[in-house]
């Protein structure tokens, strides 16, 4: 019985109708490869670079980007996992408290170039929470943001540095990112009630 907010969202999403597929497996792969190349280009290599994925699909994406970075630059880029639940601004509004999962960043982020990785960028509130969380862990040299999907409707002055695909949506629609690691398949779809 006791799962949380994200579980509930998934259950709700499962009852929605699929409207369109935005990315198929090879398109997801291409987007990840392109983001990895852009990261290397923008940061002049991978020195001092770390990837931090937001639980849970952001972590899977961060690991995939890290693999690409190894192919491109030949060095391993550390990957951490950040859970932003304790920093959310809507804990009063979501009813039962969402489950807090572990933050696992087994390296110092001080003076590092941190690339935050998430699956969907929407209101920007999750990223705000993530930046607050990161800054409690240390003082990065800079923070950049990579997302697989940017669906618009920002409520905060936040933008992504690396975007897999921009997808104009209405607020009623939902974006579902499915990844093999969590869901057994790779695809991104728009669903609506």
């Amino acid at each position, binding site marked *: 019985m006791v799962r949380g907010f994200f579980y509930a969202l998934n259950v709700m999403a499962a009852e929605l109708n699929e409207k369109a597929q935005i990315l198929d497996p090879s398109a997801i792969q291409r987007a990840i490869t392109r983001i990895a190349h852009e990261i290397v280009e923008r940061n002049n290599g991978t020195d001092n670079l770390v990837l931090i994925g937001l639980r849970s699909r952001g972590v899977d994406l961060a690991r995939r980007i890290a693999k690409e970075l190894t192919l491109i630059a030949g060095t391993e880029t550390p990957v951490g996992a950040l859970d932003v639940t304790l920093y959310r601004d809507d804990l009063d509004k979501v009813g039962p408290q969402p489950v807090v999962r572990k933050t696992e960043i087994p390296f110092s982020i001080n003076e590092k170039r941190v690339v935050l990785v998430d699956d969907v960028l929407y209101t920007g509130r999750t990223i705000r929470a993530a930046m607050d969380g990161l800054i409690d*862990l240390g003082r990065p040299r800079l923070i950049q943001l990579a997302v697989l999907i940017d669906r618009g409707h920002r409520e905060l002055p936040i933008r992504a540095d690396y975007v897999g695909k921009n997808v104009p949506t209405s607020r009623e629609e939902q974006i579902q990112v499915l990844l093999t690691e969590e869901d057994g398949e790779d695809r991104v779809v728009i669903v609506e009630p």
Partner: protein
Amino acid sequence: MVGLIRKDLLSMQELASDDIRLILDTAESMKDVARRDIKKVPTLRGKTVINLFYEPSTRTRTSFEIAGKRLSADVINISTSASSVTKGEGLKDTGLTLQAMHPDIVVIRHPAAGAAEFLARRLAASVINAGDGAHEHPSQALLDLFTIREKLGRLEGLKAAIVGDIAHSRVARSNIDGMRKMGIEVRVAGPQTMLPRFIERLGVEVFTNLDRAIGEVDVIMMLRLQTERQQAGLFPSLREYSRLFGLTAERMKAAKPNVLVMHPGPINRGVEIAPDVADGPYSLIPNQVENGLAVRMALLYIFAGGGQAG
């Protein structure tokens, strides 16, 4: 929406094993926070936690206080020696006064069994029972379960012996319930006068001999001997009690070599537990205190949202 939908935490009895697992998992994440340079997260900003303690307490009160502060809640401590309670105010009126201040969580420790429930029925705030008489002390049982799980990696299938004054111990009662729910086989041991009648109905094995009780178990949980019980005639002398039920290095030979020793504190050194056992390598007593903080952060986090579930 799914979640732990309950306003108050009054007893282990009302928690299902899934609830317990959720609390322990949340506590694991909270433990990470306590090990960082910046040991504070903004989660309970603007929430008020009142610690209402009618009995002396160091570790429980401090640990709830620090837990609240780490989560950015405003924590107010009311201890009875410095409040209107000394002027004869009853629990009901204190409760109504607190209600008027709109706290989000009230943590209560009281010498009377049922006090937490009494308050919970009268307050809109979530009430967390931090010990009510000889009834329950759920946060202690949860931190004990957390400590065992952390050390041994599981709970299911373990054996534990709880030793001491079972009849008057809220720690024993909460632990028996919690352990049984998590699949731990529980033994209790103590002088006949300190074992409640029909205790075996709780699904525990009863021993009046320490050596036999601690053979084959994975965990030995010693209880504090409340020395005032001597006046009630439950045991003849401290020395007698200590000789029969005190855990010493010598007695430990009857147990498995890697057995874990726990004690909720405060310890009567040399009475129920010998100093070299309490400070020994198998002692989890310092872990229990550290984990108490993480578990109480988890409880404050979970129950701060519990009141508005719907």
